[in-house]
């Protein structure tokens, strides 16, 4: 029976959700529904831990049809890591939402959609077929559209509508790319595509990728496709924000890694992604200086960090991939922690405006949690952001322009975070939020510290298998030391940024950045589609010239 574990990872949440739906007319108590949801979110985590302990390379054939002809579930180093990450984040955010969903105008059937979204994420991470991945991504994203509207405000409806239009357009581009891929290779399975895509001639391959670039760029929130991003994050309920930032946008990154690994890793393509990623990293962090709404600031930070991860992976050296994958996992934990503590702060103090939030004079667990998240994002040594950040810096050190952009990003991140601390004021309130909100914070903060301290260990045992699943012949020269020159650069940069941010906060807080209005934020959906067209045209012209 345990050989069927991979399929149960995907279907247990669906089974739980459907049971909940069937029992809905008969069971009136919310407690049972919460219990069903919790059990069916825990099960995939436990099953995946079991699979990971016994065998790290499982291919589960659906219906018994062999691999390129039928559909398979693949558990390799990378997908196992992603599923574990998704399991931890979904369980913790669900615990958090037990309290939060009572505040929503209509909290019923929240669990139900949440479970479908989790199942979709597992399906995306484990699918071995490109169309199957699309289908499960739609499952995730459609439940997200509905969950976004749960606050019932008109802004949340607007965010959901914009996300729907942009997301569907990107999905159509993705499908058209799949069609052209099938036209040219005759396969849809990733294993078979890996052998056939490199034989497509270069021009055709570039044009096919120009379709994919829009789809994955939209899913990751890269700069010209980011218009849904901050609006959706701000207007969603807090647990949904955490899931969006920690997991849903990672599916785009995961698809990008998969596309690179099957043979779209040629130079002009990768340089375009490095370029977009670098722009996103810098612009995202500059935009944080404009706002005073903590959730919106964190949303733009998420984008900036995603840009860094994209840069690191698109450099496509083993160290870059390892750093990117590791930062991806770390980022899920610390951004989840930051969003959840932001939500708890708003729950306790009733506002998200940093000028009225007593950030460091709140409940002790809450303040420490927020501080740990901050220090992790800045890459301060015992925390998890340090090690992966220094790996990203070393991987990019061969390209000075990229290196400078990343250093600037770290500097401005520190400036922006310490600006928040400097500006925060308000009446200190030590009242404790409910325990179901604090437990997730403690778990995620603990993971940040624990994974940070044990970085070399889990890099060797979890990240290297993931990199080998992407690049089968990847070789690392020795092991990467915990204390090194790039780590020192990172810490010094963050420290000086923190200094600048804390003492020059009054000057920075006057930043209006009016050029960004209507260009980067508050973009109507038609202009968002126009950006897609512009990027596609530019990319195609570039490919034609080269």
């Amino acid at each position, binding site marked *: 029976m345990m050989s069927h574990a991979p399929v149960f990872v995907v279907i247990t949440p669906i089974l739980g959700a459907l049971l909940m739906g069937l029992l809905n007319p008969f069971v009136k108590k919310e407690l049972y529904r919460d219990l069903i949801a919790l059990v069916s979110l825990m099960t995939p985590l436990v099953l995946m831990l079991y699979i990971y302990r016994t065998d790290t390379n499982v291919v589960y054939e659906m*219906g018994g049809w062999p691999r390129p002809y039928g559909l398979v579930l693949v558990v390799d180093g990378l997908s196992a890591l992603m599923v574990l990450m998704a399991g931890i984040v979904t369980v913790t955010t669900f615990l958090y939402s037990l309290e939060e969903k009572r505040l929503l105008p209509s909290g019923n059937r929240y669990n139900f959609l949440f479970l479908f979204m989790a199942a979709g994420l597992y399906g995306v991470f484990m699918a071995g077929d490109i169309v199957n991945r699309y289908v499960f991504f739609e499952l995730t994203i459609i439940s997200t*559209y509905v969950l976004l509207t749960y606050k019932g405000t008109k802004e949340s409806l607007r965010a959901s509508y914009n996300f729907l239009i942009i997301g569907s357009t990107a999905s159509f581009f993705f499908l058209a790319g799949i069609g052209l891929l099938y036209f040219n290779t*005759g396969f849809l399975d990733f294993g078979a595509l890996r052998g056939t895509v490199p034989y497509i001639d270069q021009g055709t391959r570039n044009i096919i990728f120009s379709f994919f670039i829009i789809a994955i760029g939209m899913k990751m929130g890269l700069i010209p496709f980011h218009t849904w991003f901050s609006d959706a994050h701000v207007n969603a309920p807090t647990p949904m924000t955490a899931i969006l930032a920690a997991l849903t946008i990672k599916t785009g990154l995961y698809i990008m890694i998969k596309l690179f690994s099957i043979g779209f890793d040629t130079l002009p393509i990768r340089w375009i992604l490095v370029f977009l990623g670098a722009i996103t990293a810098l612009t995202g962090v500059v935009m944080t200086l404009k706002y005073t709404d903590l959730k919106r600031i964190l949303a733009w930070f998420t984008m900036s960090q995603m840009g860094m991860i994209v840069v690191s992976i698109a450099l496509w050296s083993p160290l870059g991939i390892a750093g990117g994958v590791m930062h991806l996992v770390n980022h899920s934990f610390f951004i989840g922690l930051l969003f959840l503590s932001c939500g708890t702060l708003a729950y306790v103090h009733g506002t998200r405006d940093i000028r009225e939030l007593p950030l460091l004079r709140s409940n002790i667990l809450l303040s420490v949690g927020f501080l740990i998240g901050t220090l992790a994002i800045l890459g301060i040594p015992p925390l998890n952001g340090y090690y992966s950040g220094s790996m990203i810096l070393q991987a990019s050190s061969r390209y000075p322009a990229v290196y400078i952009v990343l250093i600037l990003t770290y500097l401005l991140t520190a400036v922006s975070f310490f600006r928040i601390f400097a500006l925060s004021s308000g009446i200190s309130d030590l009242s404790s939020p409910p325990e179901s909100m604090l437990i997730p914070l403690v778990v995620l903060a603990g993971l940040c510290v624990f994974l940070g301290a044990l970085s070399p260990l889990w890099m060797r045992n979890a990240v290297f298998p993931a990199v080998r699943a992407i690049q089968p012949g990847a070789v690392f020269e020795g092991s990467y030391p915990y204390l090194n020159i790039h780590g020192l650069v990172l810490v010094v940069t963050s420290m000086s940024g923190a200094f600048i941010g804390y003492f020059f906060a009054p000057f920075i807080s006057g930043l209006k950045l009016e050029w960004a209005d209507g260009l980067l934020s508050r973009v109507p959906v038609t202009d968002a589609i126009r950006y897609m067209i512009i990027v596609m045209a530019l990319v*195609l012209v570039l490919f034609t010239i080269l």
Partner: protein
Amino acid sequence: MKAVHKNILTLFLLLTIAVILLHGLDLEHEDKQESPLHMYYLETYEEAGSINLVESILLNYRAYDTFGEVMVLYVSIAGILILSEQKKGGEKD
């Protein structure tokens, strides 16, 4: 930028894309790669249980896809019903 100018720009860009796509891809039915999957489905259709190949792919070889699709349809319908049930009180906020 005026709306008219934006539209002219968009139209121009779309024409560029169209020219590059049609010229660069140069799709013809004859260029299609012979798919091993197609041959496999032709040979094993008796195992899959239907003389209608689309049916046997939909519900046998790729039944997991259909499973996901049924769930997508269900979630969207449930979502629409949830949207219609939501209290109107939250709309002011």
